[in-house]
């Protein structure tokens, strides 16, 4: 029986805590008697019969006819799926999306549906490499649909193949992939790793145009997104749900299949990462010492290669299918069942280790902008009700924050770092002054459409993701980060955790209270 998450009050006999430090990790001691560590719940048990659960979900959907009944010969069927930004780390093959889509295809074959397209709903993310598509979908789907051109990746800049479905009462225009809009049925196969994903967000962001995304991917919305993990208090999600209602009323019928996974993210020998420090066995400690010693000695490139090659042995904890809104409520319940930890009150300081990966650098480099996005965007937002740190408090992260970019995946990030961040770190200013130039740059457009680059505007979105955290925190300190790079992000560099607490004392006094978000493994703090 997996144990629920809990809050540990740090005392003098608490061992040092594990912190991510990019591709490496470190152990940091937190001050006794005023620190607490929020531990995630242990991974839930997976479904025993995944095959059966999938076919059960397709046969008994929520608020919708069974998929079998929706399929008929001669119809236009489009299957969309989440891109490689989910899951993190990547799932061991076969991926949930492959299993769902194969089951859907079997039903479609039985029903005699001939016109099937499979579209990667990647929004403004980079196009997946062939091996990534194969990892997500499996060889059979790629071999069957790739050569005939029925498997492709959404292109938000292909204006001939985008169409306006309708407009919300807030004036937001829903402009999405033409094939999706003109289908007789759209099936969406998702992986709901965190509460931010899924629901209308799948389609409304995944197959939308830049114009459509900019209605909610902007500093205004993201500053009022409290938090990303709580869709009912997120301006971003409100806008998306309004657009979703347009899709529901004026678009094609959508059969949403949402799968949730547990938090079993690290296979052996990295499984000690998910354990509580005082439960480390002799073997775990030896593994920690050996891996951290070797990772510290390896060149960064090699360490990165090792970490990105990790394939997580996730188990599927739930699958829900049917009408998007109803399905998503159940999915959220499944996700929260895994992630939620009750926490009482806020503290002056929030500490977190930033890992080697974020949703925007699978198999790639965690560049400085993504460090900001991961820290203030994702991990800061791992809360419900109110943030773990009080307003004006200090956020301390650990990450090497090297000035290193992947030129294939993140070309516009390099320019964003050189040009925009030297000018401003204020999301509002940058959105007014710079965003358009990046969004319309022909070279970025070319690389996004034909290469494997994120859209030119994507670094802005990554930055906006942290807008709420940036506004909330009185100071952000990065331990072990390259000083000039950290300063350009608008943060304060510190060489050790002790220095960081010293620097924080200017803002929060001499004996501040501290919360530590214990990752790996994901949690959402329900702060009361």
């Amino acid at each position: 029986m997996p144990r629920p998450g809990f809050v540990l009050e740090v005392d003098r006999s608490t061992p040092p805590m594990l912190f991510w430090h990019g591709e490496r990790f470190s152990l940091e001691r937190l001050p006794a008697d005023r620190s607490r560590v929020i531990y995630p719940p242990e991974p839930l048990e997976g479904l025993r019969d995944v095959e059966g659960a999938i076919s059960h979900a397709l046969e008994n959907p929520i608020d919708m006819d069974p998929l079998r009944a929706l399929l008929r010969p001669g119809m236009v069927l489009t299957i969309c799926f989440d891109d490689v930004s989910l899951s993190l780390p990547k799932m061991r093959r076969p991926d949930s999306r492959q299993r769902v889509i194969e089951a859907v295809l079997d039903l479609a074959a039985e029903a005699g549906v001939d016109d099937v397209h499979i579209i990667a709903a990647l929004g403004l993310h980079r196009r997946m490499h062939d091996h990534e598509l194969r990892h997500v979908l499996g060889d059979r789907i790629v071999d069957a649909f790739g050569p005939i051109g029925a498997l492709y990746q959404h292109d938000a800049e292909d204006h001939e193949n985008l169409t306006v479905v309708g407009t919300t009462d807030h004036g937001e225009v829903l402009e999405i992939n033409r094939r999706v809009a003109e289908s007789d049925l759209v099936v969406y196969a998702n992986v709901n790793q965190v509460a931010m994903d899924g629901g209308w967000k799948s389609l409304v962001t995944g197959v939308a145009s830049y114009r459509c995304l900019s209605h909610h991917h902007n500093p205004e919305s993201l500053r009022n997104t409290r938090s990303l993990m709580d869709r009912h208090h997120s301006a971003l999600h409100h806008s998306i749900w309004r657009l979703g209602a347009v899709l529901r009323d004026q678009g094609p019928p959508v059969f949403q299949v949402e799968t949730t996974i547990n938090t079993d993210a690290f296979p052996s020998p990295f499984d000690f990462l998910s354990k509580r420090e005082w439960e480390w066995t002799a073997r775990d400690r030896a593994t920690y010492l050996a891996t951290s010693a070797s990772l510290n000695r390896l060149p960064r490139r090699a360490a990165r290669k090792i970490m990105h090659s990790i394939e997580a042995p996730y188990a599927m904890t739930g699958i829900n299918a049917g009408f998007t809104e109803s399905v998503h409520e159940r999915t959220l319940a499944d996700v929260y069942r895994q992630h939620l930890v009750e926490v009482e009150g806020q503290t002056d300081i929030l500490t977190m280790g930033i890992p080697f990966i974020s949703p925007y650098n699978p198999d790639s480099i965690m560049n400085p902008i993504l460090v900001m996005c991961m820290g203030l965007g994702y991990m800061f937002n791992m809360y419900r009700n109110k943030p773990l740190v009080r307003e004006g408090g200090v956020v301390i992260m650990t990450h090497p924050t090297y000035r290193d970019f992947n030129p294939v995946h993140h070309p516009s990030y390099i320019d964003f770092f050189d040009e925009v961040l030297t000018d401003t770190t204020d999301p509002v200013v940058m959105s007014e002054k710079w965003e358009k130039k990046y969004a319309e740059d022909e070279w970025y457009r070319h690389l996004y459409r034909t290469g494997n680059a994120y859209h030119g505007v994507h670094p802005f979105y990554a930055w906006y993701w942290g807008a709420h955290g940036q506004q909330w925190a009185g100071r952000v300190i990065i331990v072990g980060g390259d000083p000039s790079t950290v300063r350009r992000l608008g943060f304060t560099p510190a060489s050790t955790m002790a220095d960081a607490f010293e620097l924080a004392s200017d803002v929060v006094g001499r004996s501040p209270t501290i919360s530590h978000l214990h990752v790996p493994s994901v949690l959402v703090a329900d702060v009361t």
Partner: protein
Amino acid sequence: MIKAASRPLAKYGFPWRAPTVPRGVEVPEKPSTLGPDYDTDWARRPSSVLMRAALIAGPIRMLTVALARPEVLGLDRLTDLQRVAEPEPVIFAPDHHSHLDTMVMIRAIPAVWRRDLVVAAAADYFFDRRWKAAFSALALNAIPIDREATGRRSAELFRDLLEEGHSLLIYPEGGRSPDGWGQPFKGGAAYLASRTGTPIIPVHIEGTGAVFGKGMRRPRPGRTRVVFGRPLRAGPDESTRHLNQRLETEVARLAEESVSDSWSAARAAAAGSLPTRTGPAVSGWRRSWLLAERRRAEVSGRSSRPQRSWPDLGQR
């Protein structure tokens, strides 16, 4: 010369040599221990298991790679059965074209089942000589089956083996294809599966017939391919005959998947228009003519395979 050298030995008689039988005495004939009666228990003792593992990892692997270069597909369909603490035994049911099939299968089957795999082998071929029987039992963990009459004895033996946790490799066609086309499935494997509730895994082996088919005197090295299908379980009220039919269809679908793609195969299977496994109902040259056509469609079998170039998936 040799004769001269061996002359001194001539003076050694019994007990250095076999005794001669006195006149009037009748030596009772020992019961046969070859063929279907060969006892293979010794081949499942720990020392034999160890030796077999070494044989499989060494010579068998080398031989298989040299002759057949197998490409294994569809293993992801078995993950649910594999990723549990103690995987249950299963029955692998491939189609059968060549003696190479068993070696190729042993390499292709995931390690969790490979260690305890038992192969049903034709008693009249693999167990007709003592050395062949010993080799089959040791290297392949083969069990002799009498293909003339599926004896009660072998059925019981298999059931015992399944209960002991051994997985089985059974060729439901009963023997290698005589002309390259498939043969109808006999019900043995399905019967066993439905009696014991064991999952049965349809497998299609492509290319071994071209590499070393029945009647070929020496193998012609080339490529082969093994496609695993989704495990089948007998339904609550499903007859053996129906399960056998599903199995056969599934193998036909895998064969089609291998030459075209999974989506076309699924549609053809759903529409009941899968190409025949057993060949057209014509005889003589037309059968082999059509077989050549089919083999041209296969990617395996040939020693050089044309490069497939994938179109850019992002373009429409």
